[in-house]
Every structure is written in C-alpha cells, then in structure tokens.
C-alpha cells in the first residue's frame, strides 16, 4: 500500500519555514560578526551560506528515498556516531573542550550527528517492540542506547547537547506508550540523582548552574552574559534598533553573540517583531512535526517524526529560554540561526526526514 513519490505531497511550508529562519539568522550572523574591511567572502555569513546550500541539496536528495529504508541505516549510523564521539576525544582541545573534528578546513561536530542517530535507533527499536510485550531485560536497550553517547558527549565536555538527549528520550518513551506513571518515577529518580551528577561537572559548568539561580553570583563570567543578553533583548523594544544598529551587539557587550547568544542580537536589532517572528516560525515547524507524528499510522515514521519534532522544539525553547535568563546557560545553539555548519546540516537533514515521512507515509 506504499505510495509512489509524488512531489505534490512535498510540504512547502515545512521547507520554506526553516529557510526563512535561516535568512534571519544569516543577516544576524553578518551583523554580529561584522568586522570593518573584511571582504564579504571571508565573513562567517558566507561560510554559513555554503553550509546551507549543501544542506538544501541534501534535502532534495533525502526526500527521494523512502524514509522507511532509514531503518537499515539506524544502527550503522549510530555506531558510526559513537566511533566519531570517541575519536573526537583524541583531537586537540579548543577552548578547553574537544568537540570538533576538522575535515578539509571545515569543522564537524560529531555530537550533532549523534543526536539524530540516537533518534533513528530509538524509533527503530520502539517500532519493533511494544511496551506491553517487551521482556524486562530488553527494556534496558533504549536506556543504554541513550547513555553511551550521553556520557561521551559529557566527556567532551558539551553539557548542553548531552543533556538535550534526556528530554528527547523521555518524549519518545511517552509517545511509544511507556506508562506516564513510570515516566514520572524516572524523572523523580533523575532529580534525586542530580546532586551526584553535579559532582562530575567541571567547575565552570557548576558555576553556570549556580549563576542561573542567581546571575549576580558571577557578574564577570556567566552572569555577565545573562545580564548583557537581557539588556540586549529588552532594549530592542517593539521595532528594534535596526540592522547593525544594536549597541549591545556593535559595542561588543554581548559575548558569544554569533553563536549561542545570537537571539540577543536578533531581538535587539529586530525588536519584538523579529523575536516573535522567530518564535512563530519555530512553532510552525514544531506543530507540523507533531502533527505528522500523530497522523502517520506506520510506527517507525511516527516515532521518528516525534523524536525529530521534540528535538527541534527543545533546542529552540532551551536556547531562547537561556538567552532570556529563564533557563541555565548550558550552551545549546539556536537551530538554523546560530553560526555552525554541523548544526545547520543536521537540522535541515532532520527537517527533510519530516518532509519525507509526510510524502511517503502509507495511507490505508
């Protein structure tokens, strides 16, 4: 009963929305990393555009294949990502962390790839097993699947990306049919384990968590960033200060302003209008994603769509919450907006899988 590929079912909204988000991001990256006398080709914005071009080609490639065949790629890609995560630990540290593998002048971030492959494996496992009939010991498999990359990513260290896996996993568990009661017990256990986990954190990560509770604790470090980011967002007002007109941005008050804290620049220069636009665009993708998850009768596709949507939703919410000072500064980029090639490619890949599921899903 599988349908033939038909581009009439290609979801244009799901394709164009991320491109719109990307364009807002592109302008912001240009503004946030602006250096006088720097030729256009050398700017970060140009690099970002090259990544996006590659990513869009990838989208058209991916939608041609039936997503169902991704099942066969799930485990190989998972194992590959584990290998890459191990390999990255042997690269020279940059800014105190080992997160990037350099390939031909471009830096690739294995943890980005790992997020997607974990979702693939979980979707495959959940579609082949039902919670009611699953023997107890097999229940450990999905936990192990998440734990391995989780620990490797924490080792890099990349707290934000690592922690992101946990709520994605919980969402997929819920969607699979894991009892809500058990889910709550799990979360409770997680909370209890927190004090022990904090012992494993690096000192700066611990400070960041403490600073979230009270930014005044560290006005020169993480607290400084939060205060400056809040000023940037708030001072944007309704209409913003205009492209390249942000004083927090151009005055270089806001650290990490083309990466994790880029939303501060969007909100300062584009004002409430631009911030709400970003919010609405992300919401559009997330809503569509969950709808696809709900409407796809085939279990692998439905689980996959759920995982991808929750990943996108969480990244957006956590990043925005973090820049507004509502959540701890854990270092999660804003998908498609923050500068970073791996993130752009993986996000577009994820969205193309969503489009694909919608195109190919069997209709009864």
């Amino acid at each position, binding site marked *: 009963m599988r349908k033939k590929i038909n581009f009439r079912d290609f979801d244009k909204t799901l394709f164009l929305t991320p491109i719109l988000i990307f364009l807002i991001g592109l302008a912001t990256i240009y503004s946030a990393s602006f250096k006088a006398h720097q030729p256009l080709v050398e700017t970060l914005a140009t690099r970002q555009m090259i990544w996006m071009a590659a990513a869009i080609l990838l989208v058209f490639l991916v939608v041609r294949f039936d997503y169902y065949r991704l099942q066969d790629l799930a485990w190989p890609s998972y194992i590959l990502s584990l290998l890459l995560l191990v390999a990255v630990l042997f690269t020279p540290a*940059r*800014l*105190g962390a080992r997160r990037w593998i350099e390939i031909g002048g471009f830096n690739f971030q294995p943890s980005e790839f790992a997020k997607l492959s974990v979702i693939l494996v979980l979707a495959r496992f959940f579609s082949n097993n039902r919670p009611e009939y699953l023997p107890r010991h097999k229940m450990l498999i999905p936990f192990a699947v998440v734990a391995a990359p989780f620990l490797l990513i924490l080792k890099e260290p990349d707290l934000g990306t690592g922690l992101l896996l946990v709520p994605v996993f919980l*969402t997929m568990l*819920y*969607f699979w*049919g894991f*009892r809500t009661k058990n889910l709550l017990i799990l979360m409770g256990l997680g909370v209890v384990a927190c004090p022990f986990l904090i012992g494993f954190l*690096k*000192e*700066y990560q611990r*400070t960041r968590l403490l600073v979230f509770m009270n*930014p*005044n*604790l*560290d*006005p*020169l*470090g993480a*607290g*400084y960033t939060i*205060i400056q980011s*809040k*000023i*940037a*967002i*708030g*001072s*944007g*007002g*309704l209409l913003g200060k205009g492209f390249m007109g942000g*004083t*927090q941005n151009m*005055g270089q*008050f806001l650290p990490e302003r083309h990466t994790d804290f880029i939303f501060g620049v969007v*909100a*300062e220069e584009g004002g*409430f209008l631009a*911030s*709400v636009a970003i*919010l609405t665009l*992300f*919401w559009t993708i*997330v*809503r569509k994603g*969950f*709808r696809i*998850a*709900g*409407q796809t*009768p085939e279990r692998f596709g*439905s689980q996959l769509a*759920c995982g991808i*949507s*929750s990943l996108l*939703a969480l990244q957006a*919410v956590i990043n925005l*919450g973090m820049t*507004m000072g*509502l959540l701890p500064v854990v270092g999660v980029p804003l998908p498609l907006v923050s500068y970073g090639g791996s993130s752009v490619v993986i996000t577009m890949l994820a969205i193309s899988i969503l489009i694909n599921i919608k195109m190919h899903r069997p209709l009864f």
Partner: protein
Amino acid sequence: MSQPKGPEKATRLTLIAFFCFLALFLNLFHMQILKSAYYKRLSEKNRIRVLYLEGPRGRLLDRKGREMAINRLSFNCSAVPREASPRLRETLTTLSELLGEEKETLKKRFLHGKPGIYQTVVLAEDISPSQAMAIEERLDQLPGILIETRPQRVYPYGESAAHVTGFIGPLTDEETDELEFYDYRPMDWIGRDGLEKQYESYLRGRSGGLQIEVNNRGRLVRALGVKEPREGKDVQLTVDAELGRRVDEWLAPYKGAVFVMNLEDGGLLAVNSHPSFDPNFFASRKGRKHVDPFLTDARAPMMNRGLRGQYPAGSIFKIVTTLAALEEAKVSPSKTVVCQGFVMIGGIRFGCWNEKGHGPQDLTEAIAHSCNAYFYTLGLIAGVDRLHGMALQMGFAKTTGIDLPGEKAGFVPSREWKRSERHAPWYDGETANLAIGQGALQVTPLQALTMAAAVAKNGEVVTPHLLSKIEGVRAWEKRARHVHLKEKNLAALKQGLEKAVQSETGTGRLSRVPGLRIAAKTGTAQSGQNVTHAWFVGYAPAEKPKIAVSVFLENGGRGGVTAAGVASQVFAWLKETGDL
C-alpha cells in the same frame, strides 16, 4: 485506564510545546514591550561598569613565620573610554597635574592602551596612595576616570629567596582559553616559577568582580552583581629566610648553590643559587619592563643551579665508590693501598692529586685525604656495573622529587649506555675516572645533598621538600626509601668522612666549627675550563646527624678551600641559632 492513542499523544505533546512557546512569548512581551524603557536606559547610556576585583594570593611564610611573599594594596588610575572621551582634554589636564605626568604621555596611553575586556584603560599604574586620594576627591570633574585597587605581590627577601619563591606573571591569551575552565580570568596572574608555580593551586586567589550602574558623574547608583574575591591559602615552608639571606651574602663572590637539609624529615632549610634575580620585577607590570637584563645575563641568574645545573661530581662521588666496593664487591674496610702518586691502568698513567703520593692508606685515611690512587683501585675492583648500580640506589640519574619545578635528573654512565649510544666497549680507564667522579657523570647539587643525607641517615634516602604547612595545617608527609647498607661498612665510611674534617691532613678541615663534629667530603671537579668546580657535602653533628649541607661553586676552585669555607659559615650560623 487505557493508554491514549498515537494522535492523541501527539496532540498532548503539541500542547506542552505550545505552552513553552507561549511562556517565551509572554516573557518577550514583558521584556521588550513593558520593561523596554528600563533596558533601553541601561543600554543606551552605557552606564554599566564592570570592575574586576583581583583575589589576593596566599602568603609564603618561612619556618618561623617570616613573610617571603605578601600582597600590598596598589592603586591604578584607569579610564572608561566611552565615558571619558567627550571631555578628554580637561580631564587629562587635571590628571597630569595630580599625577605629575606629561599630558601627552597620558593621552598616548589613553589612545593606545588596549582596553581590557571590561572596557577600562590603565592610565597610570601603581600610583601613590596620596595621589589616589587626590583623584578620588575630584572624580566629579573627571568623567570616566576611576581608581582601581589591586593586590600587588611583593617578595621582601628579593634576590636571596628568588629561587624558592619564584614569581608570578600574567596569563597569555592561549592560557586564558585553556585555563578558563579552572576559573581563571584574562586579567589573572599565575605562578611562573618556584613555589609560586608549584603550589599555584593553593596560593591563587579567586578573582571576583562588580557589575555596577553609575550615574553621569561616575557615582554608583546600584550594584547589579557582586562576586566577592577570595583570598588564596598561606603556604608555610621549611626554609629559614634569614639563613637564606646570609647564604646569599656568603655566595656573593661565586656562582653556585647551597642547599641545607633538616635530616629529621627532609625539609630544606636553605635553597640558594647565586647569581640570583629580583622576583619583584617580574611580579608587576611596571617591573616587567626591566627584566631583560636577568633573562639575557650570561651568568644565568634565572637558573637554580642547585636542581637545574648538572655538573661532574668530582671526589664527592667517592662515597658511592666506597659503598659499591664495600657492599657489593665485599672489599674489607681495612684494605690498604700504597699511593705512589699515580696508578697505571691499561698503559695510561692515572695521577693522584697529590703527586708525591699519600703512601700506605686504609679506607678512612683514603677518604680523609681523598686519595685518587686508592679509589682507582677500589673502583676497578667494584667494576662499572656496581658503581652504576650503587649510584642509582643513592638517587643519581633521576630527579629527587623536590617540590620545585624544573628539576634535572643528571646522568650516570654505564656499560649499556656506552655500547648503545657511543657504539664502543667500556674501558677500565673510564671505570677509574667514574670512581673519582669524572667522565660523563653529571649530578645536581641537590642529588649530592640527598646522597650525604642518605649516609647520615644510614641508608634512608629522603625526598627533599620545602612545603611544611598550608593554612597552618601540616601538609607534607615524609617520603623516604631505604637502601640496605651493612653497619660496619657505614661505620667505616662515616669514620672517613669525619676524619676528613677533624684530621689535620683532612681535605675538609677548613669547614671546622668549634664544638661541632662535622663529617664531610669535598670535591674538586674538572670543569673543562681552567678553573675547577668546588664541592662540599657533609652533615653534622657526626654522632647524631641533624643537618646536611651541600655546597657547589661553579668554577669555584678547590672544594677543600672555597666550598668548605662557605659550608663552615653555614654550620656556624646553625650552631648559633641552636639548630645544631
């Protein structure tokens, strides 16, 4: 209750996501619409200042609590460029009066000074308290000017303790990146050498800061955030700063090192190397402009000769030769050799330093007179392998493990080394040379000290150290390993060492101190240049050793004269203070 179906669960998840987005939306509305005026004021007027507060480092104290490294409050006059720019001319005129500096100089600093990450430029460094007060009083007329205070590291004992304290220096950009994770900030200073480097993790203070909102006169309106700086921990040492000061004087005519060890636990009483440098220059930005002479001086004042200098051991190595022959080759201490002033080995004449010959010598006499002929013979009986083995047991050819950075290991030649590195067999002549501490052998004065201490302590090789207490709590556990030595062999060796000082013909007689039984071995090592290196290692009192001393003088002449002389002064001082 039945589980909800797929579409229903998707709807619920959508709902959760919706509420998250709604919360973000409402928060944005709150920040950008309702409170935007507040944030605009903060951003437009740029009235936020970030003040860096440096955490003072812990002090370094000597064994009696004398301060060897402290902090003094110093004042910098700085400017916040964006606040100072509009009325720069008037401001600089006033400042140049108050500071007594050229207006043009100040202007140059203002324009070319690299604003720190917190946007202040230092106009005048380390100004006097009265100048700081004068500026502070007139801040109303000086927009954008502020007085920053910081703890300035001071080393009261200067050159005489430089090789103990070491010094601190600013972080480089690369280090800032790497050390950020250990909570270092770009403006922090870090231990660069000596104990400042070794115990950085205890000594360092944690910097803090203030983020404040100021009015258009530069006065504080409200604090947006405060992080209190934290003081570092005080580190107490085993060294005696006064002894160090005296030793530095005694060493003044020479290049060399004097190390003194308390035999009780291996704590060092003196760690001196001469020539030395003034760490105070290195520890301040002003002073760092004047450190080049130290760095380029051909006499290498920056090098601690006691643990980074490697030299031929000369006759002090005869202690190792003695132990190798007695312990491993079963030679009797009563063995007698007739010294004719030379020995023929493999057809080559190996001379004794006394060309007339010492005549018949037993072991104690041979040690006391440092008779080369006797030790050539002893060395040949023992053989290179046993000499090499005993040298390693006594701690040569590896670092002693002292708690100072940059220690060198030295080198003891062996048959294997000769074969693999020089592609040649080992010759008896080389054994003879090694037996009197010449040839490829290289030792550090600290290793020589450890050897002397091991003899004094009947085979206990202790790890020398400087750390005693951290914040008043004992922080060093004695570390030692034992070399098994027979009592009668040790007794013979020690008798010889004592005779070297007490006998009228002993080589170490110039180290004598009235009322103190000293045991010692001197050495005069060929340096490859005209003037020999002078060595002295010894301990006292001979009957119940408490202190070991090692003196090394680079191109210092005869060990029995110059080195023994310096050692004698050390022993006499220690006797005076009641340590002996």
